[in-house]
């Protein structure tokens, strides 16, 4: 498929068909106001306009006087934590605390992204693992937790949510209050949970799972080294069809059901490359790293094995939030071939990493290296500015 076509299809799938049901309800209410029943002339026709002006003035005064909800802030320990940032717990739980005394605790190995935090509410993206949330009730604030295709809408409550990307499963257990879960295989109106209720739901319907695993696979003793596209269409595994169609999370779930570890030892270079791509797009750092590492280990002479070093850097930087590891991979990529196709991008990323980490010596070395190789590059101005800074 043409790369541009692939890109636009993926954009179409990601962006979806429009806003969620709540916004559509608001739109509908607005549309209803556009047409009104015919009105009788008389008292109201004479006085409607002056009364409306008076009401508007009163409303403006009330709104000005009404207390506005304070902007929420978040912090981890004593460090401020801004929207857009990632947080992952290693072996110990990590607490994210909000200025309204709401609290989110990440269980070991869990990872989240704080998508939004402001006066109107909080939106968290649960990438993997379990969260325990204590949300202080406030009608003016909406809390949402997004996990895979699911969204949990929260009012004041105490509950836990666990997202398992491997099996595309969401588990929600409510201790106090109520939550509403939408998306995935749930009905359009969602599923409401009250105190002491628990929900476990999968993103992929059971029937689809059966269809995926029922796909016949020829028995193989040797690793598959033949290009996959040369096989008859009926033998194309389900995960690969899903991957080609841009359904990356579903593709990953399908291959994980077949046993990811075993597949990593059997797939050809083409498929490992495709699997890594799907895992990256699904936001799954672990499988992406494993596929790319397998590609480098099993096909060291393949051009894609070299490119895998660059992609490992991207995975470390964008998905695992590990700039040190990312820098090591970008350096490996450049060491293997200084004039590699993505060399400018790798040097640019090194520049950005050392700057973000505040390592002045490495920033200057990276800037000099960048300018030596790409004096007209897109970050050349930035590199010169870095060298000019004392």
């Amino acid at each position, binding site marked *: 498929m*043409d*790369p*541009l*076509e*692939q*890109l*636009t*299809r*993926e*954009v*179409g799938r*990601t*962006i*979806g*068909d*429009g*806003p*969620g049901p*709540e*916004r*559509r309800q608001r*739109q*509908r209410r*607005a*549309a*209803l106001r*556009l*047409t*009104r029943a*015919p009105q009788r002339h008389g008292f109201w026709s004479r006085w409607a306009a002056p009364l409306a002006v008076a009401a508007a003035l009163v409303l403006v005064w009330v709104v000005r006087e009404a207390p506005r909800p304070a902007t929420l802030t978040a912090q981890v320990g004593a460090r401020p934590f801004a929207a857009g940032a*990632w947080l992952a717990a290693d072996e110990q739980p990590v607490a994210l605390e909000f200025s309204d005394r709401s609290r989110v605790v990440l269980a070991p190995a869990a990872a989240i992204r704080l*998508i939004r935090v402001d006066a109107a509410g909080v*939106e968290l*993206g*649960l*990438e993997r693992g379990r969260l325990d949330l204590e949300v202080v009730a406030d009608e003016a604030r909406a809390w*949402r937790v*997004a*996990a*895979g*295709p*699911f*969204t949990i809408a929260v009012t004041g409550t105490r509950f836990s949510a666990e997202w398992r990307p491997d099996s595309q499963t969401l588990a929600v257990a409510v201790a106090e209050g109520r939550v509403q879960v939408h*998306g*995935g295989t749930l009905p359009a109106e969602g599923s409401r949970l009250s105190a002491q209720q628990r929900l476990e739901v999968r993103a992929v319907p059971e029937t689809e799972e059966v269809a995926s695993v029922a796909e016949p696979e020829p028995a193989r003793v040797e690793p598959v080294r033949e*290009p996959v*596209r040369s096989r008859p269409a009926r033998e194309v595994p389900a995960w690969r069809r899903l991957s080609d169609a841009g359904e990356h999370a579903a593709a990953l779930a399908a291959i994980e059901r077949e046993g990811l570890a075993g597949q990593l030892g059997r797939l050809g270079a*083409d498929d490992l*490359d495709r699997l890594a791509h799907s895992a990256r*797009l*699904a*936001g799954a750092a672990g499988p992406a790293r494993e596929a790319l590492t397998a590609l480098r280990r099993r096909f060291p002479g393949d051009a*894609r094995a070299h*490119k895998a070093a660059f992609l490992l850097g991207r995975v470390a930087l*964008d*998905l695992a939030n590990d700039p040190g590891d990312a820098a090591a991979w970008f350096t490996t990529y450049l060491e293997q071939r200084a004039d590699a*196709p*993505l060399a400018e*991008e790798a040097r*640019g990323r090194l520049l950005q990493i050392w700057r973000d980490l505040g390592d002045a010596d490495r920033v200057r070395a990276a800037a000099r290296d960048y300018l030596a190789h790409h004096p007209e590059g897109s970050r050349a101005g930035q590199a010169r500015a870095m060298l000019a800074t004392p």
Partner: protein
Amino acid sequence: MRLRVVTAEPDREPRDTRPAAAAVLEMAQAGDPRTGAALFDRYEAQVNRIVWRVLGADEAHDDLVQQVFIALLKGLGRVREAEALDGWVAVVTINTVRSEIRRRRIRRLWTRDEPLALDLAEAPAVPHEARELLRRTYAVLDKLPADERIAFGLRFIDEMPLAEVAAACGCSLATIKRRLQSAQARFRRLAAKDPALAERLRLGEEGRDDGPA
């Protein structure tokens, strides 16, 4: 290989929309106060999808949908044939979107406003990489001329059949094909300046080159 422009797509099944459309027209002609609701229920999915996909889920989305329905209710009395209603709704939606793109471009000349941010707060969870892909793609589309951006969005992001794109844009098939080719070429040129998109398109090309014939 470039995106191929074809004339017929069998994947969208035609449906008989005349009874529902005729009911909306009858309500409008009778001055029924429920016309707005009926019109919204019948066409909100179509209007939302077009505006959302062409403009990229931005913060002004709901205001634009409202503008489209104001324009639809204003002009509904001029529609005589129920068969024409679906197409007319698409044309009005596209005209509203086109005016908005041009209005923003002119405003940006004076105010240097940044393009509006993506608003996916209510969308299903989208991984960071995919959000980034959306942001960068729509940043490039933001630089396309209004007509090219609309044609590109309808055809390649919404995957609308070519004939419907031409009808919605109010031009011939030949014109829309030329416009799409020009939009593709311009998109590729502008995407080449964005490292992530350039890498994405380059990796795709390399993957195709590496793959079997």
